């Protein structure tokens, strides 16, 4: 690929997570004690393991409640909250927001609200149930356009790539991109049915891991062209310097054990960023806690990095598997890591799987030895995206 060379910076962040509201809460939680999931407060969630990392109820906003007659569930409200944080963090005013396109990755979106209606015996609200992107666009007051992007657990990673391409193509000077997801009984039930839920906590790369555990949340990033950011004196967390898509085209739920397309995505993202594996100071892997993903990804990382294994940040062990939001959360974590120059300590494993030969520092923060962070997000259906965030030299 030969991308346009208009550098794209990350100038605003917003997050709603199991640690509460805001990026500071996210970072404090990431650097704090190991979090545990809890049982979803849903008496109709008839399944063996109804566990999730939930946003604290007190942190879930009650507004906006409605968009064009559609009642908004938790996911949409989390998305709006994170979006408002991100544009405030970027220092954007209402005039700037009018020209700010929105690209949001979601998968279940307002399905949680529909499920609550069925629980209470209320009439089915019908459709649409993909409404978060429009809710975000309405909340920030844009006229520039909105796209709602789905790719299961890689959705927000793809949304960030869409935003990156829009800026490089000259369609926009800045784009708000990210993801949002609330709890969904159907999603949780299906993962239970597929035997993909851990009974304890989300334990990626652990020998005893038995699946993943979902997390609620929203993560939004402002992507901005360097020339636009510089002209207004904005500071940047990092540069989003490379991204590559691929698809295993192998199986609907299992990754290709060879990992050829995942490897291609990582190498492609690095090449697009004009970086080498030696430039990568840390990796935020997809790392879900499922038996297959973690070992396949570990081997793929080994193919890309050889004997030199950069430290990883096992984010899902901290906030759960946030589904469509995973890629955006990983990029927020990567941006914060690059700003601070240190990778937080990982949640302690009981015992690392010997087949997962990744370096998981657990005893304390790890200084970034190289100026880039690689992010992976993989999805049901075999879609992969890798993104490279690099320290921005201009700040």
């Amino acid at each position: 690929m030969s991308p346009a060379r208009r550098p794209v910076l990350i100038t605003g962040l917003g997050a709603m997570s199991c640690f509460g509201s805001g990026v500071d809460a996210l970072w404090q939680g990431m650097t704090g004690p190991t979090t545990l999931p809890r049982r979803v407060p849903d008496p109709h969630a008839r399944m063996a393991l109804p566990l999730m990392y939930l946003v604290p109820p007190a942190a879930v906003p009650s507004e906006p409640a409605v968009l064009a007659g559609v009642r908004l569930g938790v996911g949409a409200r989390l998305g709006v909250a994170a979006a408002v944080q991100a544009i405030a963090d970027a220092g954007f005013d209402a005039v700037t927001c009018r020209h700010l396109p929105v690209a949001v990755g979601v998968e279940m979106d307002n399905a949680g609200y529909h499920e609550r209606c069925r629980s209470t015996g209320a009439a089915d609200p019908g459709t649409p149930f993909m409404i978060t992107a429009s809710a975000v666009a309405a909340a920030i007051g844009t006229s520039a356009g909105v796209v709602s992007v789905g790719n299961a657990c890689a959705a927000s990673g793809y949304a960030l790539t869409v935003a990156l391409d829009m800026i490089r193509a000259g369609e926009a000077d800045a784009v708000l991109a990210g993801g949002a997801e609330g709890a969904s009984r159907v999603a949780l039930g299906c993962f239970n049915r597929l035997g993909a839920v851990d009974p304890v906590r989300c334990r990626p790369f652990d020998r005893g891991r038995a699946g993943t555990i979902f997390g609620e949340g929203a993560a939004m990033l402002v992507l901005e062209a360097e020339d636009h950011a510089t002209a207004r004196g904005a500071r940047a967390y990092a540069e989003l310097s490379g991204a590559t898509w691929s698809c295993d085209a192998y199986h609907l739920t299992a990754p290709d054990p060879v990992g050829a397309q995942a490897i291609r995505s990582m190498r492609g993202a690095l090449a697009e960023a004009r970086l080498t594996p030696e430039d990568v100071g840390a990796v935020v892997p997809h790392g879900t806690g499922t038996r297959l993903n973690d070992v396949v990804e570990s081997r793929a990382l080994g193919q890309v990095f050889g004997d030199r294994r950069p430290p990883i940040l096992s984010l899902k062990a901290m906030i759960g598997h946030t589904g469509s939001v995973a890629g955006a959360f990983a990029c927020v974590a990567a941006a914060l890591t690059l700003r601070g120059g240190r990778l937080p300590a990982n949640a302690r494993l009981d015992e690392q799987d010997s087949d997962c030969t990744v370096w998981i520092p657990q005893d304390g923060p790890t200084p970034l030895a190289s100026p880039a962070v690689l992010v992976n997000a993989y999805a049901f259906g075999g879609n992969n995206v890798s993104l490279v965030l690099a320290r921005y030299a201009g700040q």
Partner: protein
Amino acid sequence: MNWVISGIGQVGPTDAAETNWFDVAARLPGRGYRRLPAACQYLIAASGDAIHDAGDVLSTVTAERRAAVVGTNNAVTGLLAEMDRTIIDHGADELSPAQAPFFAVSVLTARLGSEFRLHGGTLTTHSPRTAGLDAVQLGARALATSRAGLVIAGATEAGTAAVDRADTGAAVLVCEPADSARARGVEAYGTVRIVTAFLDPVTPDTAVLDARWPALADPVDAILDDSPVCLAVRTWAERSEGGMVVTPAPGGCLAPVRRLVESCATGAVGRQLVVTAAAHGAVSMAAVTMFGRKPVATREE
């Protein structure tokens, strides 16, 4: 980059009230199709028709350069409701493991990946009403940024009782760089330029549409409902020198993509503007330029 439509395909009932119109055994012979969600079956069938219509395109584009972007609003609405009912009434253990992956609607598009070896990536869009045109726009951008050398772009829907005037079927375009089609000796149907905007759902202001589309001269084919956003768009588009036809919008995002396919299928030379919008704010305008190519015979003929 200039890109063109080199193949078209669509499936759907001839009558909105028609049931059992899709014979999966006849349209998708072989294993593994019968238990797919209906919208996935429609998508695979229409995509196969479009690829056939595009000529020998798969042999000239490596798998790593092939991608798909598909829009949908209701492909799994009915399935999600059924699954939820099962969980509530009987528990998650009673869910079908074959159907379970499709709780994620993007898995329908991903299924195209294994069908046609699309290692370049598959992506789903789902903004209400505009998702189909969004898919074409994202596909065009993927070509322009060289993320892909071939994009299967379109929309699929499965009618469900939960959706008022639900649409059903699939419509697909094969999109590739103009140079690639020319090198293959394939005549292109035309091309599409898509512009999007967002209007406030309560007090929609069409000034942004004036800025996006200052000269409105082509015939307008508008697919709209009676929401404030759509009424504002209708008023704005009425001034087109080419005139306007308004169709009440069915539920879903399929109709605008059908218009693109049908515009290509006429074999006419000319331009047309397909406009759609949703009550929640999204507006999408597709300027179609038709080159005059007539479709080849379908696989069924």
